[in-house]
């Protein structure tokens, strides 16, 4: 069967699906829609699954006190958006693994070039975990762009790690739109986020010239404190 005949053949069959007698009732549907819009919660299968997941999460937190401490710390720090120093989040990481956590990684940037964190040794690194759907991340990104511009020559390297699950499809248009001047890497499978104990975003780590984490911030960074920490590590 040639292309035109095939087209007609399929169209003719799909046209059989027409239901000329069907008259949708818009007013009734609008009332139904407004009822549904008004309901914030509905007790259905999704609610039961959610409740079961929440119960399991609570049970895990009770069983594993170390992870409970980390979560508690992260949420406490997120609420006041202050820099959390090594003695807190990082110490929890240490307690969990009982050794210096492996912080080095290699990920690809938007041009497909691999970037290794260890190669930035000798520089102060501001490592920012973010995602395009995270509004808090979008708030602080212009500040990071500003830090990069101001302190690049003094030895600061800003590195963004995107946690967008759909990869460059969402990230690349945003990079263009926001005019990011620093490398952004993609951690689609979340393995690096796991290693850095990322439970929510944004999370920012400041790494000193020796490659050791000096400070971490959960939630939107406090711009003044973050800048002061960068300057301290840069030796100004």
């Amino acid at each position: 069967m040639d292309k035109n005949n095939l087209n007609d053949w399929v169209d003719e069959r799909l046209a059989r699906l027409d239901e000329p007698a069907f008259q949708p009732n818009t007013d009734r549907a609008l009332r139904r829609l407004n009822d549904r819009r008004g309901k914030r919660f509905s007790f259905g299968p999704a609610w039961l699954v959610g409740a079961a997941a929440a119960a399991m999460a609570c049970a895990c937190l009770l069983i594993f006190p170390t992870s409970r401490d980390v979560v508690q710390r992260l949420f406490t720090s997120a609420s006041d958006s202050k820099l959390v120093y090594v003695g807190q989040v990082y110490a929890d990481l240490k307690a969990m693994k009982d050794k210096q956590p492996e912080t080095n990684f290699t990920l690809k940037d938007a041009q497909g070039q691999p970037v290794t964190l260890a190669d930035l040794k000798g520089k102060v690194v501001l490592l920012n975990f973010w995602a395009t759907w995270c509004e808090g991340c979008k708030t602080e990104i212009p500040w990071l762009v500003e830090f990069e511009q101001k302190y690049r020559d003094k030895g600061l390297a800003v590195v963004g790690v995107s946690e967008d699950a759909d990869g460059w499809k969402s990230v690349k248009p945003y990079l263009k739109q926001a005019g990011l001047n620093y490398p952004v890497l993609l951690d689609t499978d979340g393995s690096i986020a796991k290693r850095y104990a990322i439970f929510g975003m944004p999370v920012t780590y400041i790494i000193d010239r020796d490659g050791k984490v000096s400070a971490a911030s959960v939630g939107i960074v406090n711009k003044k404190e973050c800048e002061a920490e960068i300057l301290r590590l840069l030796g100004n």
Partner: protein
Amino acid sequence: MSSRSEIAEVIALADTPFDFEATFRAQYPRIARVIARVVRDPARSEELAVEVFLKLWRSPRAQGDKTHGWLYRVAVRKALDELRRQTRRARYEGLFGFAKPSPNPEQAHAANEDQHRVRVVLACIEKRQAELLLLRANDLSYDEVAASLQLNPASVGTLLSRAQQAFRKEYVKRYGQE
């Protein structure tokens, strides 16, 4: 290249706040019909159409100049999901021999009618291909189909042709040449 008036129109459209109710009134009957073509039950079609708009209401990013294509895409997907669910249920009911009332003559006729055959074939071929065929059958242009399914407009023709071949192959396999 866009003329000045076209550009002004686009800017004005972008600045205009999204009127959800006006969109609902303008698009609901068409969206309900799109679903009714796939899902035989009109009442269920209307329920699904309401769910489509509920999803639009919860998705601010879909509200704007691309709403039209978005609505068609979601409607077709919801309809196909429902069709597949119905087909699966019918298959399991047959498999496990659940008690079913014997069909009356009208139902027996409906089961053999042409619409039923087309729906069965749509439920069997790849979902993406079924979506493509249904969007095209709802008189969406190649560009609109491409925008709805996030495809390259240049490849819509090829993909549509493949979908038509798959549809015909499955149809002939099940019901023979007509």
